[in-house]
């Protein structure tokens, strides 16, 4: 395809197959706007954005935005994103992942990307249920959730992904909600502009299998200036633990943590070389063997 620099032009002609009322629409439109605005404000050409998707409803976004994309396999977009960022540091690499996708199938990759502080952005479409496989529990489903694989209710407790990410070393951690779109877009922009590993957990409505609209609407609030110190681990962990994805509690939205650390990809100091130079180096190495 040829990129179209207008925000409207970032939507492809591919037929959209999300359910009516799906939270993915907000994510799609806010990501489109975030990319268009960063491109405009920061002078980053559209061609330098790369989206990655795993497998699940979230992944369909790869077909719906006219931006470079690598539609990968279930749970595995994060290492591919690391590879892309390693190959070309000029690219803005954004992984769209699902909660089943990355908290179940690919959790190891998420933890290691945070540990490395690789300069990518991970957006989790967390609807707390498997949609595309028709309604099973995920690692963030609340205890007691009745899904098709757990008709008597889940006995496990959900993980708090923000807490996992903070422990793993993520340098940017935020949470958004698909019904607070403008706020969501600002978080996307902040995450993409952050140097290092950015993690954005998005509470996403699943209109078909787990519609938590009323539950979230009654509990979410936006973090205000002065509520916490985003540069301090202790301050972040306290806010992150306010709601554990299980018990009833107020649900904070916004940035929890944002610090600077050296970026993984920049630790490789190997100078680049063309094919002929490399071949000469191979020959020389054999000639001077041991």
């Amino acid at each position, binding site marked *: 395809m040829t990129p179209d620099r207008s925000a409207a032009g970032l939507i492809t002609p591919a037929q959209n197959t999300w359910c009516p009322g799906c939270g993915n629409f907000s994510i799609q439109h806010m990501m489109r706007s975030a990319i268009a605005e960063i491109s405009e404000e920061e002078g980053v050409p559209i061609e330098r954005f790369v989206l990655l998707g795993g497998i699940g409803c979230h992944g369909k976004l790869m077909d719906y935005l006219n931006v470079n*994309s690598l*539609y990968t396999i279930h749970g*595995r977009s994060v290492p591919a994103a690391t590879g892309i960022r390693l*190959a070309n540091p000029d690219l803005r690499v954004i992984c769209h992942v699902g909660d089943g996708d990355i908290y179940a199938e690919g959790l190891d990759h998420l933890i290691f990307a945070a540990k490395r502080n690789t300069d990518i952005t991970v957006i989790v479409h967390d609807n707390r249920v498997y949609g595309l496989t028709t309604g099973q529990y995920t690692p963030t489903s609340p205890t007691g959730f009745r899904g098709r694989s757990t008709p008597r209710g889940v006995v496990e407790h959900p993980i708090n992904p923000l807490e996992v990410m903070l422990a793993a070393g993520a340098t940017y951690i935020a949470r958004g909600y698909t019904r607070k779109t403008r706020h969501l877009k600002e978080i996307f922009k902040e995450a993409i502009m952050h140097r290092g590993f950015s993690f954005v957990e998005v509470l996403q409505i699943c209109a078909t299998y787990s519609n938590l609209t009323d539950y979230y609407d009654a509990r979410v609030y936006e973090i205000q200036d002065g509520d916490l110190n985003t540069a301090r681990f202790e301050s972040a962990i306290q806010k992150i633990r306010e709601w554990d994805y299980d018990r009833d509690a107020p649900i904070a939205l916004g940035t929890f943590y944002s610090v600077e650390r050296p970026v993984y990809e920049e630790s490789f100091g190997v100078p680049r*070389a063309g094919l002929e130079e490399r071949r000469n180096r191979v020959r020389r190495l054999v000639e001077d063997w041991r």
Partner: protein
Amino acid sequence: MQEYSLLVGGKAGEGINTAGLSIAGLFSRLGYHVYMYFDYPSLIRGGHNFAIIRAADEPIGAHRTGVDVLLALDRKTIETHKERIGGKTTVIYDSSQVGEERGYGLPLDEIIREEKAPPITRNTAMLGALSRVAGIDRAILEDVIRATVPEKHLDSNLRVAARGYNGVEGVFSVRPLDAPKLPVLTGNEATGLGLVYGGLDTYVAYPMTPSSGVLHFLAGRADDLRVRVVHPENEISVILMALGLAYAGERAAVGTSGGGFCLMTEGLSFAGMSEIPVTIVLAQRPGPSTGVPTHTAQSDLHFALNAGQGEFPRLVVAPGDPHEACAWSATALMLSWRYQVPAIILIDKTLAEGAYSFDLDASTPPRDHEPVLRDGGEEYRRYRRSEDGVSPLAFPGTEGVTVKANSYAHDETGFTTEKAEDVGALQEKLLRKARGLKTELGGYKTVKTYGAPESSKTIICWGSQKWVCIEAAAEVGARVVQPVVLAPFPVEAWSEAIAGASEVVCVENNATGQFARLLREYGFDPGTSILKYDGRPFAVDELTARLEGVFV
């Protein structure tokens, strides 16, 4: 053939591998071709490690059972290798460990104490003793030590070597040859060099014996060779990272053994569908499961040929020595990019960790292949249909281009599709690439033959068993046929190579005759299988005896 076999054995942690390589270096210095088989258990200290070094005035790549000199750093070495000791074998042993034995005892504890040398220099004393026994000039011995020992330990090593040298007597005399000193490389090292020669930018791997040698070698030489080496959290990440690198335009390769390759298969299938090039070094060891981690097998042939769900073209090459490993690793990487298919370099522990004389000048440089790149013009479609199935590549970041790669069935742009006509067209595109790759390989020597060309006795082998078969064939008057490419299978080249064969055997390091099975699939008669599946490669004499039992 003028040849010598030597064994050095001791406990893990005593530097047996290094000692073996020093002995190989000594003979290389005299112009001999060398081969070293290194045998070790899966532990870090203790146990029993040994290396058999064979030197000859012709190219070789296999060991023999018997040895001319046995260097024993412990009693276990003598006990374990009784069958290798014959009437003419000279035994040199550490008398502080072994006690009294036939041969020459060296009190190594005493020597290193008196010379105030580190314990690892016991090996140097043995090297000194070996030089004297083999009539090798002391200057050459000292040269070899200088080339391998760091400056600060040089003096103590030279003193210890002299004690070894003076502690024994001359037994035979190795004649220096008028031939160049060739470097001694492992299959892993040659594979790594080949990948770089073929254009490698980044090597990604998780450690797994026997493939880790590629990782260690390239990581250690990353600055010299201008490559990047990454060791991620697991093999799933390894192959996905490589695919991400390649999607963004870097040539990446990965390395592993059977268990790690199991984890990579989903990524392999993704590479097949998304048409993102990746080169995989698959170094076999005995399975099933964890199996025998530090030993050898050729039991993953069908796994390499069939791994990954769905049907997609792939290149599988099985080099038989470091020369082929170097050339075919380069070719595999280049063809992987030319045809946008995964390429597998199928080796095994015998080749990966065996050390061989390596003559870069003797091998023809591999032919160059360039990837098909977008040349501007019409709107870019990542999977544009073309006559040979290969769509021009563009990479993200290119002005005016959106690159959409996809693991789902996709249309030309890269959009997911389930339409019957699109799904059919996609599969046909992959089939066209397979045909193109096969035609391309028609211009290569994909099947090689050695030995008596007119003989009706034919030995079929693949991979690391090449050299042991060449030598055994010479003893029984047979010829050898070796496929270097296993997929796409070179049917025509095989028909030609095998023409006239009446008595056929197929030699493999596995229990079920996997290559024989492949031949039957293509309608060829693999003859009688000679199999070995105890984790050890054939020795020349051992294989000769097995062949004599079949060829009557």
